């Protein structure tokens, strides 16, 4: 059993009771809500005549269903309209803060939590969305929950949970030029498998994480769940504090000092013990791109696609299915695979640093005529910042579309969808069949750099080979 890790410390300080089911009742420090997983949960509250136990610890926004082109009400999709209207009514009725479109602060929950300083080290953070692991980058325990559990948090600010084991993922040395946090997370999932993290929280550490920006850490923690780990976190350090200082909900003055002292305390101790440790040499990581139908189906961009024989049992069938569905062959190169769509966005890669990186590579280039490219900032604040820096012009001049904040083409719940058997290169986190809105649509996941280099080339291309830009 792990000892004295951040996970253990946060778990212990948030334990309310031991339940008959053998689970622990855990206090939830921050509850983020959005339109998709809440209507039934609020309905449950109404049925039992309960209010929200700690309304100040819940905050809502809208992201999944929001159109990124025309946001005029009522929305064309009446399911979306109904979800939106239900959320508006519920937050009003239950007195929950809501960051609506006119707040200037709306965005994907996992982008706005850290951005506003709501997500802080040492917290437990829950949201009805699996990518809540993102907030682990702040040195918190963030995890996704189902609708019934959303109801539990609303009514009691607690959840019944099983304690996880802790696996430390140590990335040593340094990343090579052109290799990004997205490549690190795809590599971790490649090595440990999409079920490797089941029952574990991942603690990411080592030189590469020490040197990584906060937004990079968010990208990595975001995809922990794709490797089966419900939680992934990085210990808070000076980088974390520098990021948090001055944000809207961060403490100020003396309270800030007390906060920093507490956050230092909550980090894993030097004597921390882990249930397991996995090490990767940073230098061995290449830009990664997925070739198949789950996020574990990835390959170093210059490597040949893996032989089906390298997979065992059920995984072999999935790999075969993956090759067939994606119309690719083992042994070949992924480079040169023609793409129809390029998507830069989602809670994995839609923050200002992602857009800056994309714009840096895009500058002076054009999106290939055969490619439709969408650039979708993760929040209204990111969008504003990008426009202040003129990044939007770099994208639009190159022929990409610049959209309003939202989940967009990460999933088929809003008008941004693949059509037919279109093939996309995407910075999002899931390449499951049908994920981008077309049952036959094909998704390749990669970093913002890979998405831009591929958008320009019209096919999957190595960003390290783009000509030096002025």
């Amino acid at each position, binding site marked *: 059993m792990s000892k004295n890790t951040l996970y253990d410390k946060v778990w212990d*300080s*948030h*334990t*309310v*009771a031991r*339940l*008959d*089911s053998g689970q622990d*009742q855990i*206090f939830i*420090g921050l509850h983020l809500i959005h339109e998709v997983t809440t*209507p*039934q949960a609020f*309905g*449950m509250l109404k049925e*039992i005549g*309960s209010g929200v*136990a*700690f309304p100040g*610890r819940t905050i809502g926004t809208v992201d999944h269903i929001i159109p990124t082109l025309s946001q005029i009400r009522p929305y064309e999709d009446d*399911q979306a309209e*109904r*979800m939106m209207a*239900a959320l508006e009514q519920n937050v009003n009725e239950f007195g929950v803060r809501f960051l609506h479109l006119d707040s200037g602060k709306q965005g994907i929950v996992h982008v706005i939590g850290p951005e506003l300083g709501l997500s*802080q080290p*040492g*917290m437990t953070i829950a949201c009805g969305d699996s990518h809540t692991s993102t907030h682990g980058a702040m040195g918190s325990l963030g995890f996704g929950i189902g*609708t*019934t559990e959303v*109801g*539990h948090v609303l*009514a*009691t*600010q*607690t*959840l*019944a949970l099983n304690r996880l084991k802790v696996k430390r993922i140590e990335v040593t040395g340094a990343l090579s030029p052109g290799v990004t946090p997205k490549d690190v997370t795809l590599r971790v999932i490649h090595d440990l498998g999409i079920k490797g993290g089941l029952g574990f929280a991942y603690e990411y550490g080592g030189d590469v994480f020490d040197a990584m920006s906060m937004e990079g850490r968010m990208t990595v923690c975001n995809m922990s769940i794709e490797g089966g780990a419900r939680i992934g976190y990085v210990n808070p350090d000076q980088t974390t504090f520098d990021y948090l200082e001055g944000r809207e*909900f961060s*403490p100020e003055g*003396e*309270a*800030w000092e*007390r*906060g920093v002292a*507490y956050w230092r305390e909550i980090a894993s101790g030097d004597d921390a013990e882990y249930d397991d440790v996995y090490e990767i040499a940073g230098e061995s990581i290449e830009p990664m791109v997925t070739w198949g139908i789950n996020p574990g189906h990835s390959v170093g961009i210059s490597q040949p696609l893996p032989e089906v024989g390298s997979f065992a049992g059920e995984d072999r069938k999935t790999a075969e299915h993956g090759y067939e569905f994606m119309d690719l062959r083992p042994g070949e190169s992924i480079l040169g695979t023609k793409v129809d769509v390029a998507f830069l966005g989602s809670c994995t890669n839609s923050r200002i640093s992602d857009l800056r990186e994309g714009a840096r590579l895009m500058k002076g280039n054009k999106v290939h005529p055969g490619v439709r490219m969408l650039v979708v900032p993760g929040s209204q604040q990111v969008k504003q910042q990008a426009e202040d820096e003129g990044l939007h012009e770099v994208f639009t001049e190159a022929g990409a579309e610049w959209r309003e904040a939202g989940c967009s083409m990460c999933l088929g719940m809003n008008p941004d969808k693949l059509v037919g058997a279109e093939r996309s290169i995407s910075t999002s986190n899931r390449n499951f069949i049908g994920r981008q809105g077309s049952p036959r649509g094909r998704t390749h996941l990669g970093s913002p750099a890979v998405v831009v280099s591929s958008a320009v080339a019209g096919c999957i291309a190595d960003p390290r080979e783009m000509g030096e830009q002025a």
Partner: protein
Amino acid sequence: MSTKRIEKIVGKAIPMPRDDIDTDRITPARFLKSITFEGIEKALFCDERENTPDHPVDNPAHKGANMMFVGKNFGSGSSREHAPQALKRFGIDVLIGVSFAEIFAGNCFAIGVPLGVASADDVNALIRQAQEEPETHFTVDIGNSTVSYGDRVIPIDIQETRKAAFLAGTWDMLANLRGNLPQVEEVATRLPYVTNFDSEAQ
């Protein structure tokens, strides 16, 4: 703490012979669009009821029934919570069958609907009894794991941990969590971030 012990259920039964009734038949997919469970009982078997004039669910002889006898692999298919919700809201408090799909069983437990498993012969006997003499009142005894009518007693299997939770009234996780609200307050007071590190407020 509010206890919701489930020990004994007495009432009439709806017989649903046939195996592999999946969740899509229990609550057709188009009802997944609805954003609350309110009124979901109207969806119960609605497609097949439309095409089956004497469907057991509509048969006036079974009106007021609070249990259902089903075949093998009931509740298979998609994991939607709508199916057990529709059954419960229709008034079904317990199901006896030959076997149940696992996720369906978990969803039933979460909303306090016990499932009893009996041999195919015993289930057939129950189904026939309910069909031939619909006024029969059956008694499901959770503690003793039996279903009985007249002087016939049929043994049923109820998963042990779930049975214990039904008998103790601890199956309702939300009620358990709410029961500890005073301790929740205490934990909240101890966590410095709850006041955003404002020591005055602590």
